[in-house]
């Protein structure tokens, strides 16, 4: 085979692989959408599940997912942003800082089910918080922490040093420089980064199975001590655990679409806002 044809073949194979990956994505979205569009209705979104989940809607699962994700952010965002500020603005080189960075990277690598097991052992049983919104959110917060730290650090890195120097040269203290000339400009990036993390967290199943998501709990939780339904776990149950799997299959499709729509719109929204901010930036 001549060099020319080798190269042609190589290009075709590589391009086909790339095209295929895009194909997989659209195929996945299409496959879920085509069988679920018919299921989605106002009632499906806003109704309680009825008749052992064979009828009705998914309202408590939507609310549960929103609650647990927001509560997670309440714990993780302040910690994550403060950690990023320390690492990017204060930390000098040294073994303690290397250790912190190593810890963050390893937290990012711990399998989600191990977080779930840890949450079960510590929050649910040892600390006696039970299967609850609080236990699940604390568990998810540990998972979200490394995501938020790295997103926030990236945002801080976009702020030029001249802002810091300019403030310091005018007699600002370190914190005043950070507080007035760094944080306000890094904040939009930190928020969009956190929303991206929120999207990832909202779709997590494994950690919440063991810490607070309920098989069937057709109520809106009124306190952080209650169990809750969640879209990802609800989908798992409808898809594999329900005693009439075939009967509830349309509901499973609908749940999958709502979950996917929720997660993708959050992430896409954050990405769009981020690129808008980048284009608007004047420095």
């Amino acid at each position, binding site marked *: 085979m001549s060099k020319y044809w*080798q*190269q042609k073949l*190589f*290009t075709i194979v*590589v*391009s086909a692989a*790339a095209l295929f*990956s*895009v194909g997989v*994505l659209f195929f*996945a979205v299409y*496959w*879920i959408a085509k069988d679920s569009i018919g299921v989605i209705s106002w009632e499906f979104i806003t109704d309680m599940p009825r008749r052992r989940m064979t009828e009705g809607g998914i309202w408590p699962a939507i609310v549960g997912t929103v609650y647990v994700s927001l509560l997670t952010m309440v714990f993780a965002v302040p*910690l994550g942003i*403060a*950690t990023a*500020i*320390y690492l990017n603005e*204060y*930390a000098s080189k040294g073994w*303690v800082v290397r250790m*912190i960075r190593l810890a*963050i990277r*390893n*937290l990012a*690598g*711990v*399998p*989600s*089910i*191990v977080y*779930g*097991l*840890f949450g079960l*052992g510590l929050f649910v049983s040892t600390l006696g918080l039970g299967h609850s919104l609080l236990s699940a959110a604390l568990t998810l917060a*540990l998972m979200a*922490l490394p995501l938020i730290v790295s997103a926030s650090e990236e945002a801080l890195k976009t702020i030029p040093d001249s802002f810091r120097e300019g403030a310091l040269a005018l007699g600002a*203290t*370190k*914190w005043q420089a950070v507080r007035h000339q760094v944080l306000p400009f890094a904040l939009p990036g930190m928020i969009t980064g956190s929303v991206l993390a929120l999207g*990832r967290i*909202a*779709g997590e*199943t*494994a950690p919440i*199975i*063991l810490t607070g998501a309920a098989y069937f709990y057709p109520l809106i939780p009124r306190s952080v001590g209650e169990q809750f339904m969640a879209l*990802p776990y609800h*989908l*798992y149950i409808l*898809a*594999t655990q329900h005693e009439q799997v075939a009967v509830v299959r349309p509901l499973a*499709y609908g749940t*999958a679409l709502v*979950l*996917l729509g929720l*997660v*993708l719109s959050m992430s*896409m929204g954050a*990405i769009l806002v981020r690129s808008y901010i980048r284009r608007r930036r004047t420095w």
Partner: protein
Amino acid sequence: MTNRSVTKTKEQVIETGLFVVAFMTVVFLMLILGFLLTRAWPAVQEVGLREFLTGTRWMPSSRTPGYGAFTMIYGSLMVATGALVVSIPWGLAVAIYISELAPAKVREVLKPTVETLAIFPSVVIGFIGLVVLAPWVARTFGLSHGLTAFTGVIMLSIMALPTIVSIAEDAIASVPQEFKEASYALGANKMETILFVILPAARSGVTAAIMLGFGRAIGETMTLLMVAGNALSMPTTRVLGLPLPNFFGSVRTLTATIAIEGLDVPWGSLHYSSLFVIGGILFTFTFAVNLVAEMVMHRKEV
């Protein structure tokens, strides 16, 4: 003057506070590790680590219990390795296409599109595997059901893809332009330049991408829980007399075991403790993989 010293104290308090918060990440990691170890200890003491790692009888709630987790280790390694066999060439091809072949406009669309795959909740990927791929596998290969290691491998390779593409693409893009120019100047064509100059120069990053992809694959729960069948078996087949893993059998992974049994297990029982042993195995495994990836990535390119 006192005003000054108040400001100074405040500065000190803020810096210390931020440090304490940042250091919490180390505390959290240690807490997770320590907690897994203490909860796993009773089972390790009672059963012995050797039995966990090599035994094949997993029946922790039986009257004559067995705690051999090798079946699940086998399952986890089998699907993770299988997934990488698919996703490494695929991911590298996508990374090469994005950084070296694609027109600028295509690249701008392609990279975020592939990264979107990473946003897909694993339970949704599992659902697609369950309703689309599994029936197809059953039909095509004449099986009674499609919940097999093969199905898990395919779905898992899709999940590992974005990790591999995005890190490998960064590594390839950071190969200096001079290397490529030198290669072209010596009469190499594009394919030769990519295969013999760019990929070798980017090998640290590519290796790290593979390691991280492997870590992700080993740690994945929901997808495999939904499509791999969860049978406590080690399917093998003989090819030319050699025993090889049979990908058309059902397997259960370490992760799936925790998810299945974690909810009903009585707290404090030996069974409960043995789940923490499995958690510890997973933790150690991913910790090691990440550490190696880290070392490879920060090694100086020669």
